[in-house]
């Protein structure tokens, strides 16, 4: 065995050991949890107070756009690009391994393992970012629902009674308005005030605008499975979606864990193969027993 071959094999063994350990660590969540706090880019969505005021149809688009512009959104995009490229590299290496033989094949397998580990690290990094995104979204929706509940709260029986009375007064005023107007302004000598005239003008303008708003496409309610949803229901739906994505992400982490384990086992298998080859190629004499040396003693 030449010196070069031996050196390459030692290097190979050392790096295979590194890959095995690295692959196992790549999927370890505890390592990433520590990194989470310091290194992950951030996404700080608009305040929930402002978001509540947006139409339900626009809310999700606004949030998605805001996220894509954030450092966290850009980081995910960048990681996705890198993952795509790494996938291509893995496919190329796999094809090359199938065609290669001998030392080259061993070397390519080693490279393949290294790239698989890098791929797992990239996916793991992307998942950390996605998890942060989903958790931020989750917290945001929860805050929005809390604010909405706060606005609806405080309707004590006394206040409810007042609101009912006010509604009743307005209904009575509305239903008697024409009659009152006729009696006051047309029959009697009381002239229409400036307020009444201006109010009627403005009301006509408001009604036109309200009609346009009513028919505006951005004012249509969000529908899920053909059922129109209120804003609160829609936010609850978004919250459930974020929760579901988080659950799927956790499942994906399990897959990553298994992939990392496989890479580690592959690395150990490669290491064992390299050791076997080294032993077979060794210059050291094989262990001899007295029985095998008998022939030397039978002749003079």
């Amino acid at each position, binding site marked *: 065995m030449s010196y070069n071959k031996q050196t390459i094999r030692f290097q190979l063994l050392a790096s295979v050991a590194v890959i095995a350990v690295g692959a196992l660590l790549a999927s370890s969540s505890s390592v990433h949890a520590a990194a989470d706090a310091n290194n992950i880019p951030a996404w700080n969505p608009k305040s929930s107070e402002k978001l509540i005021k947006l139409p339900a149809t626009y809310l999700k688009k606004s949030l998605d756009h805001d996220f894509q512009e954030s450092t966290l959104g850009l980081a995910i995009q960048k990681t996705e690009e890198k993952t795509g490229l790494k996938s291509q590299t893995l496919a190329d290496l796999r094809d090359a391994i199938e065609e290669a033989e001998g030392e080259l094949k061993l070397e390519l397998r080693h490279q393949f393992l290294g790239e698989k580990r890098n791929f797992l690290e990239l996916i793991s990094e992307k998942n950390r970012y996605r998890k942060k995104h989903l958790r931020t979204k989750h917290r945001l929706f929860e805050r929005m629902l809390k604010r909405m509940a706060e606005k609806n709260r405080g*309707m*004590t029986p*006394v*206040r409810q009674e*007042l*609101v009912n*009375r*006010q509604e*009743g*007064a*307005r209904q*009575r*005023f509305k239903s*008697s308005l024409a*009659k*009152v107007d006729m*009696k*006051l302004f047309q029959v009697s*000598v*009381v*002239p229409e*005030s400036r*307020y*009444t005239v201006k*109010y009627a003008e403005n009301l006509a303008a408001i009604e036109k605008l309200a009609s346009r708003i009513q028919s505006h496409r951005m004012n249509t309610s969000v529908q899920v499975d053909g059922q129109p949803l209120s804003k609160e229901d829609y936010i609850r739906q978004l919250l459930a979606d974020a929760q579901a994505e988080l659950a799927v992400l956790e499942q994906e982490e399990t897959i990553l864990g298994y992939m990392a384990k496989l890479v580690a086992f592959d690395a150990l298998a490669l290491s064992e193969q390299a050791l076997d080859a080294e032993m077979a190629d060794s210059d050291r004499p094989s262990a001899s027993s007295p029985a095998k040396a008998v022939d030397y003693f039978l002749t003079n």
Partner: protein
Amino acid sequence: MKTKPIITAFVFSAVVSFSALAEAGTLENLERERALTINTMLNPEIAIKDRQAKIASAKVRLIDLERMVLRDKKLTGRNTPTVRQAFENYDLTFLVHGATEKNISIVDAWLNQLGMTTQSVLSASLRRR
């Protein structure tokens, strides 16, 4: 002369009940105008002709002010004693609209709400306590 103490008591109670209106805005203006109108209605020192002219002029202002209060969204659910009291009795607060609906004068509408009729006021006698 006989009706004077009763009228004075009514005016006093009307002014007192509408005094705590520091923050109501439209409602405050309505209550002020209404108190002044009631004062004019019940003031025996004003000549009949002057009173009628003053009430007619106040009525125009009251119509607008009543409508402003009814259309004021800021008052919706504002749980203050003033707002609660104002919406407790439509006919008393929205005097002109209530009276016009029922086809009676605002004086009669106001007295009716207090459980008085023109007849009972006229037949009241002055006594010493």
